[in-house]
């Protein structure tokens, strides 16, 4: 066996790959229209997450805090939640959806956010806001469990299970994207349109790439509505692109409303996109059209230009959200590259059951290591002290210093990317994403060849 799956041996984290659960819940919340979340905890749990989103998207998103201070931490802070809901409703007349997102502090002190939601539904809402549509949704995301990835998964499921309501069957399918960029949603919606499939996309976040309008009144926000969420119960099927970000929602809809589901594989690369289209076709009965055959052809043409000449045998280290890492590794293999190190940044015990990981274990014919509960020191230490050779790093911006100090070219991918411009606009999903990835990897490698004077002349006649 050449591929090993190991858990990081150290207890601690040096340079984390993920932040904690509440961030994931907050990311889900900003995808919903007329929704402002309240994070129940200290103010930093919101302030820094908003900063992180603004670093990545170069946009500002509205999320509130219950601002738990010392007295709340000692005596309980549910009164802060009640006040926060009231203040938010008074000052934001359009707000309908308010998730109450817990954190480590408020979980440790045992604040009963479910109870306070019931209380507010019985008193505050009918008494002070009669007739106003308000949805208060408790979301438990203690920071000492899982990671931002599981936090996102939990929140998507909590939103859907709160709203989903069976009525008339719909022609639509539910398409749960997982933690992706606006460019990915555009790419997926394009595939859906070409397939003539109507989908309820969770979440509609193309608008995160918001314009600067002459009216000066535009704010970036997600576009998924309450109605969309309600309607998830009526779909003819659910496809969750990611196993770990939205997979549990697909399962919930199947268990609760008998909606057939397909989870993954994340459509990164040609092969996974083929699978996605095949699944889509089977679920809806719609054929894969000629236009996509052509689009696929353009992507394959482009990838052929770079793959076996430049990318073959290049050793890659990949870190980030698990579905992204796994999908990228699969695609790299198809492009003849050699992923040698995959870092999955949390302790999710289900990784070993992931069929994609099992396939790596079964069929990889060189030394590949998959580290769970990993941090970025697992990468840097191997390169710096253990002699691991890596030609390319794929990952988000938090690893930028490792790449720079180890002098290894790096393609920014995933979340967050704040040290390259506009990366949220480009997809990694679909044929468009495959082409963009291949060409970006190649171009990054070319620049590195030139700066290091490493056979840079071969580009003369390419």
């Amino acid at each position: 066996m050449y591929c090993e799956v190991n858990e990081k041996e150290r207890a601690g984290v040096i340079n984390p790959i993920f932040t904690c659960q509440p961030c994931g819940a907050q990311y889900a919340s900003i995808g919903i229209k007329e929704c402002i979340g309240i994070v129940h905890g200290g103010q930093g749990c919101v302030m820094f997450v908003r900063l992180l989103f603004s670093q990545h998207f170069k946009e500002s998103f509205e999320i509130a805090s219950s601002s738990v201070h010392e007295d709340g931490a000692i005596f309980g802070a549910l009164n802060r939640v009640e006040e926060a809901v009231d203040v938010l409703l008074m000052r934001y007349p359009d707000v309908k959806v308010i998730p109450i997102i817990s954190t480590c502090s408020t979980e440790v002190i045992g604040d009963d956010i479910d109870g306070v939601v019931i209380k507010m539904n019985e008193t505050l809402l009918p008494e002070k806001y009669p007739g106003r549509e308000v949805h208060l949704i408790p979301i438990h995301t203690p920071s000492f469990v899982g990671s931002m990835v599981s936090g996102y998964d939990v929140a998507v499921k909590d939103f859907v299970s709160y709203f989903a309501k069976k009525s008339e069957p719909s022609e639509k399918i539910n398409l749960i994207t997982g933690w992706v960029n606006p460019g990915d949603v555009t790419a997926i919606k394009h595939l859906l349109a070409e397939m003539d499939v109507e989908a309820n996309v969770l979440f509609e976040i193309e608008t995160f790439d918001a314009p600067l309008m002459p009216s000066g009144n535009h704010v970036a926000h997600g576009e998924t509505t309450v109605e969309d969420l309600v309607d998830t119960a009526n779909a003819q099927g659910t496809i969750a692109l990611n196993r770990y970000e939205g997979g549990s929602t697909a399962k919930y809809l199947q268990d609760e409303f008998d909606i057939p589901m397909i989870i993954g594989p994340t459509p990164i690369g040609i092969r996974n996109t083929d699978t996605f289209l095949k699944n889509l076709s089977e679920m809806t009965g719609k054929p894969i059209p000629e236009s996509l055959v052509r689009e696929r052809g353009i992507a394959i043409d482009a990838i052929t230009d770079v793959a076996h000449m430049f990318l073959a045998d290049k050793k890659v280290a990949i870190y980030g959200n698990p579905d992204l890492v796994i999908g990228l590794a699969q695609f790299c293999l198809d492009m003849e590259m050699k992923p040698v190190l995959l870092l999955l940044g949390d302790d999710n015990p289900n990784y070993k059951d992931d069929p994609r990981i099992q396939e790596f274990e079964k069929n990889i014919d060189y030394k590949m290591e998959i580290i769970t509960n990993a941090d970025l020191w697992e990468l840097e230490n191997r390169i710096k002290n253990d002699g691991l050779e890596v030609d390319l790093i794929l990952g988000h911006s938090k690893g930028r210093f490792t790449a720079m100090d180890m002098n290894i070219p790096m393609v920014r991918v995933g979340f967050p990317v704040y040290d390259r411009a506009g990366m949220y606009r480009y997809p990694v999903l679909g044929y468009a994403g495959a082409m963009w990835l291949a060409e970006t990897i190649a171009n990054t490698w070319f620049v590195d060849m030139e700066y290091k004077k490493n056979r840079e002349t071969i580009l003369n006649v390419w």
Partner: protein
Amino acid sequence: MPYHLFKCSESIPEREKHAVIKGEGEDLTSALPLGYLNTIPGSISERGCAYCGAKHVIGTPMKDVIHMSHGPVGCTYDTWQTKRYISDNDNFQLKYTYATDMKEQHIVFGAEKLLKKNILEAFAAFPEMKRMTLYQTCASALIGDDINAIAEEVMEELPDVDIFVCNSPGFGGPSQSGGHHKINIAWINQKVGTVEPEITSDYVINYVGEYNIQGDQEVMQDFFKRMGIQILSTFTGNGSYDDLRGMHRAQLNVLECARSAEYICNELRVRYGIPRLDIDGFGHEAMASSLRKVGMFFGIEDRAEAIIAEESARWKPELDWYKARLTDKKVCLWPGGSKLWHWANVIHEEMGVNVVSVYTKFGHQQDMEKGVSRCEVGALAIDDPNELEGMEAIETLEPDIIFTGKRPGEVAKKVRVPYLNAHAYHNGPYKGWEGWVRFARDIYNGIYSPIHKLSLLDISKDEIRTDVGFETQRLLSDVNLSDEIKNSTTLREYTGKYDCIKDLRDKTYPEYLTKKVSEAV
């Protein structure tokens, strides 16, 4: 009372006393907002937490330290690579961050063993690092882990390491300021006086409340070195852990950001008799008077005057070039704390801009006393502003540019107001004579951006000029400028380098003999 209640905050009338408009003839006995009070939940305030105030603002700029947070991973991740405090040891403190990664079982059974394991692992991973700071978080505070005891235990086992413990959980106080306070007091209680520093000059200072944002500390250090002054320690930007243990041997504390670091100066005065001299490192006049004071304190004002003359001659013509083009522009000075008073007056006098509003996210009334005093009449001062109030203020004040944080800057962008990063700067450093010109240059480039001008145009309605292929900052800024200024041969645009810090690191300085040595000779 000149309080100002925003329309958007009429439903939370307690906000009224958090904003004032300083009217004609009004002074601090009437025009001072409330400050540093608990935040109104759900108001979408911009405040952070006491953990970040301690760790991110003050702790982490210390450069030769393993900065470890005891808690779940998020606090660590979130306060990593979100500021621009550099250091001359290849930015160790920026690059590496450590979390003990507390999980559910630790919440239930305690995480002291986990903490100890973490400490040992980190020292093993970075054998050259012998200093560590441990930061408590909400979670480790609430489960009651005895971090101090573990630190003591490790220090006994590993005699060559030293560990500082900062117990400042996120919920401790209305804002990050609570953490500034806690870490100041913790440092003097635990660490000051535990190392006897080598004194190499007759003139010895601590430089306090300076975080080396984009190299500010190194700019100021250059001036002090040119004067032959020994900087025993910098609290904390580019500062060294062991140097900071020797703070008690300075003759003077030169204090820059009083908001975050006056506590330790006050305690050093009480406990060790070291006086506190507050200075401004921003602005040419302020720089001159700051160096002059420090020089006079030591009786070496001639050295200060030489620097002042040289730097002024070099950079004043460039500052004035920008001043001529920025005069009467309206700015909102919306930083976190100290910059509202560091900048309020000097930016008006030296760049000609009008500060129409100041705010502080996390400051105290003391910051507003300084800020309101330094503003001109009519300025709107806001304590703990929230999202809607900021928008309302922008609509009514119509500023030409806003100095604020990264995320609120994105809000400003959408309403077509350029912003500069007031915390981390755009192209700093902003301290010193040259830095101040860099700030002016950034403001100028923000305001006179051709793209910004295009952003105001609605192509579906407005007239579109088709005879113009491009515009430049200069074309935009010089439209109404007098020929005398336009054609001035003395004024000039910024001529410094992209990176003005690199050269400082290789610089050699004049050697001044100490009295003891020169008497021996």
